[in-house]
């Protein structure tokens, strides 16, 4: 691609994506101010919101096409000859990043790395906007720049940057598309709110009545728009600080949306919980930010400016051309050198090479990951997510597929170059544990949305696991496919709930497939996709006959298998996801069978069930199409190729025995080798799960109740969600309450009690003193004294004596201060 085209493409993409990003904000502003006056019964807000997000989708789609065109990953080419292109991409990426030779000829057919080797700034024809793929740059293909400098704070520059690469464009398209579907769906789902007096059946007022309030149709849509704006901003962000800003905004929006039915106590608690859990993670994020800023002095991801003006981005500083972290020393003294644009050590102001203690790099990575843990509901902060089901179903769909939880995985993927092997190992284990916990709890819950919620947790764990074991592609691949099928299933469950008049318990459903066929079969697509089922026949161009989930999950299992082969001590990282795959298939089918098949368990529900209107079914069909086919071609299909273009440099070649722990990350090649083996195992597990679920819940061959009774204690343990809430309650919530109470009561309680104990100690003296006073001194004014005493005694009940306690406390504090000081002073 020539420089001119590069500039042109960059500018086009920038404006397209900016439009897509800002439209929801405009929508939000109009809705929040205009909605109030347009009345409670108007659907205008909804149409506006849909219009904004749909236009955003169109823009994103155009951007995607532009990008494909520019990257020469022509859609038609891919369809005609996906293998060839994929092969070329693989070949070239490996050639470029492993060998680092001037291999332009070799890569001539895939011209987008035409200037790989031109790391030298003097390369004049590439001077202008040659894309970021020169040698030093881990970025194959990216555009970045600054919209607006928000503020300068000493050395910190807070800017609104953009950073556009394949991942960005793909995320944009995915988010806007799913959001459009969900918006449309919500028009139908939220139509109850189009009233002046909405009756909330779940809020019971004294006297057996339900709570009445004005409908909040426009409010819902304005929040949705704001949510989309925040998420898109996060994706578009070009520096980690901007990510943080939108990160928080996403948190706030989720707070508002989860707490939409604020009058329900459960909803407001859930909203609080979500927000607070996220804040806990964000604290880690902040620590990471602080370390990055202190040592690197920049927040920018990368500088893709071809003429190397401007500061280096984080990714460029931390890794060499080959994508390795250059370190020196051992243990805590180990330091990592920062890299300059020309592949040398970056020099500080004093002429010394700039270095960062390796352990700080690890801490920074862990800190950033802590943010991801909060946002993506990973162990141990996963408990907010199921509670977040209190929000309206479209919100759940949005939160759980395309936006909030995806943000964490997205950031982990985006920030991958900054993660050292140690951090990756933590990520992998956290992901594995999360996947397992989520899946096991999903086995026992009976609320249809809760099943989906736990499956989300589990799937997010998968993604984190994949990223942790070095399967960058697999993780983000799964992120995209999961977004489609999970939003599909949520909307399906929404349709069921809508059809059953807000009944969410699966134990009261059953046999609904006749009543709502569209919902039933679209959901089936989702279930098959998430279970990773496939027919093990490989077609020439399309890979195995399967839906999207198979491909991505297959990739994850393959990555973890190859990781555990290379690092045998961590073989658990392969077995957990494998087992989980089986469990996943089981509980998803359990849900599907329980809902749609078998005998109707509650006739009241069954009789009133009806298929949803077209405004709701339409999105289901659209989403089911993508859930089925978006990953066609598997890892050599168009989606994976698109993702590969933004994969960090060092992933493809793998990493040999790096870090303190000597971890080896698998290369593409190694993953590829064990692909079929892993695929077969995963498929086997999934099939087993499916068959068992069929036997249990459709065929009724085994009575689930018996099993439940057999494993009563395990069931109870799972039912109480591994006791996490209880643990947190007793570990954090209660102590904080106690301390808070103690602090407020300190003035009154502690001091008073102190005084009282002194008083009781001195009560003998007091009485003696009183007698002495009355008998000897005050005999003349005895009566007067009596009155005084009585009055004083009466007043004593009222008084707390606080002012003097204050003064007493000054003296006591001064004394204590000195005693403490003297204790600590050297003698």
């Amino acid at each position, binding site marked *: 691609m020539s420089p001119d085209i590069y500039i042109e493409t960059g500018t086009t993409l920038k404006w397209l994506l900016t439009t897509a990003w800002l439209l929801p904000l405009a929508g939000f502003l109009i809705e929040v101010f205009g909605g109030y006056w347009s009345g409670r019964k108007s659907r205008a807000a909804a149409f506006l919101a849909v219009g904004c997000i749909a236009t955003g989708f169109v823009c994103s789609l155009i951007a995607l096409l532009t990008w494909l065109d520019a990257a020469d990953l022509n859609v038609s080419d891919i369809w005609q000859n996906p293998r060839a292109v994929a092969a070329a991409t693989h070949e070239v990426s490996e050639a470029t990043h492993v060998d680092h030779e001037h291999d332009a000829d070799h890569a001539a057919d895939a011209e987008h790395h035409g200037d790989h080797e031109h790391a030298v700034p003097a390369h004049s024809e590439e001077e202008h906007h040659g894309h970021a793929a020169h040698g030093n740059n881990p970025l194959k293909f990216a555009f970045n720049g600054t919209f607006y400098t928000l503020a300068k704070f000493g050395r910190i520059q807070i800017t609104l940057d953009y950073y556009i690469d394949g991942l960005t464009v793909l995320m944009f398209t995915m988010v806007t598309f799913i959001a459009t579907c969900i918006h449309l769906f919500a028009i139908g789902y939220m139509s109850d709110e189009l009233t002046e007096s909405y009756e909330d059946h779940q809020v019971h007022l004294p006297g057996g009545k339900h709570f009445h309030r004005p409908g909040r149709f426009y409010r819902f849509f304005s929040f949705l728009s704001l949510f989309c704006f925040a998420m898109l901003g996060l994706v578009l962000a070009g520096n980690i600080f901007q990510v943080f800003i939108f990160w928080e905004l996403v948190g706030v929006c989720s707070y508002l949306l989860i707490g939409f039915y604020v009058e329900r106590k459960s909803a407001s608690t859930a909203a609080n919980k979500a927000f607070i859990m996220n804040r806990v993670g964000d604290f880690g994020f902040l620590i990471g930010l602080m370390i990055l800023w202190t040592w690197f002095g920049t927040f920018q991801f990368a500088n893709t400016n071809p003429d190397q003006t401007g500061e280096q981005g984080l990714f460029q500083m931390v890794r060499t051309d080959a994508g390795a972290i250059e370190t020196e020393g051992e243990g805590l003294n180990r330091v990592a050198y920062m890299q300059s644009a020309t592949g040398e050590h970056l020099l500080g102001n004093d002429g010394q090479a700039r270095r960062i203690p390796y352990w700080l790099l690890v801490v920074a990575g862990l800190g950033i990951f802590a943010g991801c843990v909060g946002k993506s509901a990973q162990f141990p902060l996963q408990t907010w997510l199921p509670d977040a089901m209190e929000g309206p179903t479209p919100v759940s769909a949005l939160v759980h597929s395309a936006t909030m939880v995806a943000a964490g995985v997205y950031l982990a993927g985006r920030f991958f170059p900054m993660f050292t092997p140690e951090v990756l190992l933590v990520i992998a284990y956290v992901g594995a544990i999360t996947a397992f916990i989520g899946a096991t709890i999903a086995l026992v819950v009976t609320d249809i949305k809760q099943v989906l919620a736990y499956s989300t947790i589990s799937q997010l764990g998968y993604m984190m696991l994949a990223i942790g074991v070095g399967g960058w592609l697999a993780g983000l691949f799964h992120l995209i496919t999961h977004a489609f099928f999970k939003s599909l299933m949520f909307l399906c469950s929404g349709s069921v709930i809508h059809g059953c008049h807000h009944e969410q318990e699966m134990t009261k459903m059953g046999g609904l497939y006749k009543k709502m066929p569209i919902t039933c079969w679209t959901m089936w697509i989702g279930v098959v996709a998430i279970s990773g089922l496939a027919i093990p026949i490989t077609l020439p161009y399309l890979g195995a006959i399967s839906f999207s989930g198979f491909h991505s999950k297959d990739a994850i299992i393959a990555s973890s298998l190859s990781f555990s082969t290379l690092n045998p001590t961590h073989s658990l990282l392969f077995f957990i996801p494998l087992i989980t795959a089986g469990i996943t298939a089981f509980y998803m089918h359990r849900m599907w069978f329980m809902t749609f098949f078998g005998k109707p368990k509650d006739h009241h529900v069954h009789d009133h069930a009806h298929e949803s209107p077209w405004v709701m079914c339409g999105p289901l069909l659209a989403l089911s199409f993508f859930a089925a086919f978006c990953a066609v071609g598997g890892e050599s299909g168009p989606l994976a190729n698109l993702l590969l273009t933004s994969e960090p440099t060092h992933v493809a070649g793998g990493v040999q025995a790096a870090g303190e722990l000597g971890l080896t990350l698998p290369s593409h090649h190694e993953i590829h080798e064990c692909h079929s083996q892993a695929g077969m195992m995963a498929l086997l597990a999934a099939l087993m799960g499916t068959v068992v679920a069929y036997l249990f819940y459709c065929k009724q061959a085994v009575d689930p109740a018996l099993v439940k009774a057999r494993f009563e204690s395990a069931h109870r343990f799972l039912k109480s969600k591994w006791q996490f809430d209880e643990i947190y309650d007793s570990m954090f919530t209660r102590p904080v309450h106690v301390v808070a109470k103690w602090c407020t009561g300190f003035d009154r309680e502690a001091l008073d009690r102190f005084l009282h104990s002194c*008083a009781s100690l001195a009560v003998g003296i007091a009485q003696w003193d009183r007698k002495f006073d009355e008998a000897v001194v005050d005999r003349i004014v005895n009566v007067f004294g009596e009155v005084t005493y009585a009055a004083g005694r009466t007043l004593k009940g009222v008084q707390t004596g606080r002012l003097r306690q204050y003064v007493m406390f000054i003296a006591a504090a001064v004394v204590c201060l000195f005693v403490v000081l003297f204790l600590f002073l050297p003698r």
Partner: protein
Amino acid sequence: MESLLFTIYALATCGAALGVVLSQNVARMAFWLVVSLGCVAGLFFMLNADFVGATQLLIYVGGTVVLLIFGVMLTASGPFNTIKSEPAEMIQAGVIGIALLAILIPTVTSVDWVGNRDTLSHAGVKSPSGEFNQQGEGGTSRHIGAALLGVRVDQADASAPSEAHEHHEADHDHGHEHAHGEEAHSHAAHDHAHAQVSETNQASGYLLPFEIISVHLLVVLIGASYLARAKRRVEQPTS
């Protein structure tokens, strides 16, 4: 003689202060307070701080305590005249007080004041004391007056004692008009002092606080009179 006088004053001061603490009747407290403050004035005189001592008597004993007694009278109504503290509180306060004393007294007494003074003098810090009080005892008012106008005569004297002596002779009580009455003095001395003051920054004159405190007093009196007067009365010009 000195130490005897000091012992009497010190004991009287401490005893009266203790009396304030221990007496339960507010009028008696006021009495003990007067005694205590008066004895402090005596200690001031012993320290050659005549002007401060006089001010202490005038403002404290004559003014502040009278103010307090006014307060006692205005607020003393019937049964609340004697409001007793509980013995328990006295004990508690006594414990804290003894702890404070146990910290303060060893600290201040263990410091080697003379040694420190010598250390500083050896290090070249000008010794400001000595001349201004030992020559003419009680001859401080004039220095204070000048200092309040922003001129430090004593600091100038310290480095040139021979010239400084002649000024001390002219000391007589100028009251608290702060050196307004000082007239007949040689220009030579003035020039000398001038040179000293302008070339060293160490000697600080106290013109600013002297003047700004008058503003402060004005503000405070306006505030006090606001609180004291009844609400919504037709205003009289205040202060």
